[in-house]
């Protein structure tokens, strides 16, 4: 069933300029297959996959080329048919030197994936469902890229009662999840059912920020048509970071994930809508995760929009395919502007966790100088985790690591709201990250 509420949600948060207009409502278009793909073996949180192909070997589209190494790891598949021409260290968003399988596209698309006749997933057991998700190498597509099969198989000691589907997409500029919900509402609802069966839960809630009325309308229509009483659609107040896992759970269920805990501690598993879509593809068509939808946007992009891109496609190739840029890029961000990572080279390939690529020209550059804290308290009001970002930033700046212990640094969700609001332009969230590292190294020194 459907209901729409105006939920205040969580404490704190900010309202950055959304800037979604560049790519909002732009239908998905498919980027051409790149000539050469750099497929990283690490596209997820956890151990990198083990390469199982050799240089010179011919591969098919969707063929397994990297095998999950251990439980928290994920399979990697070839995004294109062709020949492995090299296995090299190449810059990726995870590290400046990450092992990549280089595949040159050639031959026909004798796809290794099964036919487009869907299998009847209702007859699958939970183990079979998890196996096919694991086989397909699915990871969280919201950005964190945590292996999905791990998330969908919580230990028996943590009973799960609710699946939350994250369609908040609170990052500015990004519109890919919005478009996905508008374009494939049936597929997403079906994917939710598959995920519900995999988890063995009777309830699912889709949370969508109220700045995406078209997506809400599309999903609502499907929910009404299919009469799915176990799936609820909730319109959330537009506020960053509404899509952060813990804040989303709080907003939808009034449950607070305990400090240091995981969503499963409060009986919840959260999956991004993109991941849900990929789960369905994997279960119904045995389609491995080798491509995804991303937003390409920014003030200097000639044709901003939502595109389907194969993993391993380098940013430099993307620029040519989408019709180029209006100006020399000065800053290129992989992900959204709040949490995304600034790239130093356009050689970096798109990976599973890439939700968008943003290009900015000259006038975007701000001075990196920051001033002293004036104790305005804006970061304290904005912090969704209830921390004292200003105090932490001062302690880290002054290298007072011992004093940091009582400031709950590890409850920080790295949303960047504190840095956003700071009038002194202090990189507060970066200071918090540094503080976390210092605390970690201090505790290892002690033990």
């Amino acid at each position, binding site marked *: 069933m459907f209901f729409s509420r105006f939920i205040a949600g969580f*404490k704190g948060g*900010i309202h*950055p*300029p959304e800037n979604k207009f560049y790519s909002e409502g732009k239908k998905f278009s498919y980027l051409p297959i790149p000539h050469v793909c750099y497929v990283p073996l690490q596209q997820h949180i956890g151990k990198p996959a083990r390469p199982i192909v050799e240089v010179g070997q011919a591969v098919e589209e969707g063929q397994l080329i990297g095998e999950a190494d251990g439980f928290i790891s994920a399979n990697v598949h070839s995004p294109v048919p062709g020949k492995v021409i090299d296995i090299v260290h190449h*810059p990726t968003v995870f590290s*400046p030197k990450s092992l990549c399988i280089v595949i040159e596209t050639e031959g026909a698309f004798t796809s290794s994936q099964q036919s487009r006749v869907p299998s009847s997933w209702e007859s699958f057991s939970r183990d079979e469902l998890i196996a096919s998700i694991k086989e397909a190498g699915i990871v969280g597509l919201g950005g964190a890229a945590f292996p999905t099969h791990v998330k969908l198989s919580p230990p028996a000691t943590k009973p799960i009662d609710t699946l939350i589907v994250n369609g908040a997409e609170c990052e*500015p500029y990004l519109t890919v999840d919005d478009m996905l919900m508008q374009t494939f509402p049936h597929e997403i609802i079906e994917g939710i059912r598959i995920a519900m069966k995999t988890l063995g839960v009777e309830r699912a809630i889709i949370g969508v920020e109220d700045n995406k009325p078209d997506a809400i309308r599309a999903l609502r229509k499907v929910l009404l048509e299919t009469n799915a009483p176990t799936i609820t659609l909730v319109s959330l107040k537009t506020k960053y970071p509404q899509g952060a896992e*813990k804040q989303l759970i709080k907003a939808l269920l009034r449950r*607070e*994930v*305990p*400090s240091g805990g995981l969503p499963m501690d409060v009986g919840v598993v959260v999956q991004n809508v993109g991941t849900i879509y990929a789960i369905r593809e994997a279960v119904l068509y045995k389609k491995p995760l080798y491509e995804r939808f991303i937003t390409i946007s920014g003030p200097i992009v000639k044709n901003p929009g939502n595109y389907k891109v194969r993993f391993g496609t380098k940013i430099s190739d993307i620029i040519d395919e989408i019709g180029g840029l209006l100006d020399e*890029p*000065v*800053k*290129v*961000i992989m992900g959204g*502007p*709040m*949490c995304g*990572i*600034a*790239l*130093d*080279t*356009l050689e970096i390939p798109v990976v599973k966790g890439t939700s968008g690529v*943003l290009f*900015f020209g000259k006038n975007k*550059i*701000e001075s990196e100088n920051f*001033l*002293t804290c*004036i*104790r*305005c*308290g804006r970061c*304290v009001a904005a912090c*969704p*985790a*209830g*921390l*004292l970002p*200003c*105090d932490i930033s001062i302690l880290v700046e002054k290298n007072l690591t011992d004093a940091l212990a*009582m400031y*709950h640094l590890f*409850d920080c969700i790295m949303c*960047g709201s504190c*840095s*956003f*609001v*700071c*009038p*002194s*332009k202090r*990189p507060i*969230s*970066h200071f918090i*990250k*540094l503080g976390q590292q210092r605390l970690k190294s201090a505790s290892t020194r002690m033990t």
Partner: protein
Amino acid sequence: MAEDINTQHTERTQKTSKMQLVLSVPPHVRDSQSVTYIMWCVVISLLPAAGYSCYLYGLKAAKLLIASTISAIIAEAAYQMLMKKKITAHDGSAAITGLLLAMNVPPHAPVWMVCIGSAFAIIIAKQLFGGIGFNIFNPALAARAFLMASWPVHMTTAWHQFNPGNILAKDIANIANLPPTAFDAITSATPLACLKSAPQIIADYGASAEAVLQTLLSNTMLKSLFIGSVGGCLGETSALFLLIGATFLFIKRIISWHIPITYILTVAIFMGIYYALRPLPGAESIDHFLPRMVLFHILSGGLILGAFFMATDMVTSPVTHIGMIIYAIGCGVIASIIRLWGGYPEGVSYSILLMNAIVPLIDRYIKPKVFGTLKRTTGE
């Protein structure tokens, strides 16, 4: 890790890439308000009241305002130059200090005095503590306290003499048929000083308690207090023009309701309770004595100026909303106590200074509730 990645990235960029991309840590978008923007907004918000004081008190007021502001900026620049620090005198914070100090002295105070006060505010109360962000006391108020201690006569008697032709003076004189000498005593001081010395006036000039109270709490007087055509410090008299500036700060989200509203409400409640328990002699002759008295206290003296522009100083107020409320209640209680029982007629500036001293303590014990923990963390 991000740092390592970034440094490695940078090194590699320098070696190989033709194209220079700028690296920075997330977030890559920032709010448009900077410290400089906020500070100059506060300066702008003070201008209506400052402008009105120039209209009311004439060129003398303009001279004081300009001299004080400029000497604050010069003091900051000179100190930073001497100490080989980065010069931030243009960031607007020194201008606020200078402007606020001038608005906190009587209109006929000597110009050299506010210049010394500004230099004290910037050098002693601000820079010696480490500059912007590190000072414990509001620099303008610390300087006001310094001037009060150093030149008490200038600071407490240089009020404006409203001549008998003044509209306010005429209106007030007609209210209760006060003897001319008592009338002079009332209009030549601040309304709060009159209230404090009311028994004296009654005894000295043979005025009746009713007449004095009727004058002080008359509609004319309350209206004058709101508009600002009464005696007082340069910038504190006009509630109207101060509120215009405060509205601007609210719209710009530079101040929140927590401090000013709590502060004023505390004073209102405190005064309400006090006068309900101990009505002044002659109170029974006045309609709506209690609300009039409370309004008189809100509008008179520097309460509006202090609550909206000085207690809200970001550096010297708590960072949490609950901390702000505690701080503002403390300000309200102390200001009321000084007004009722203290040696001075007005207590706003000392109340803020005293609470400034407690702010580090408030910030230490009042912490936000950490997400996922059961209760607010307090202390250590």
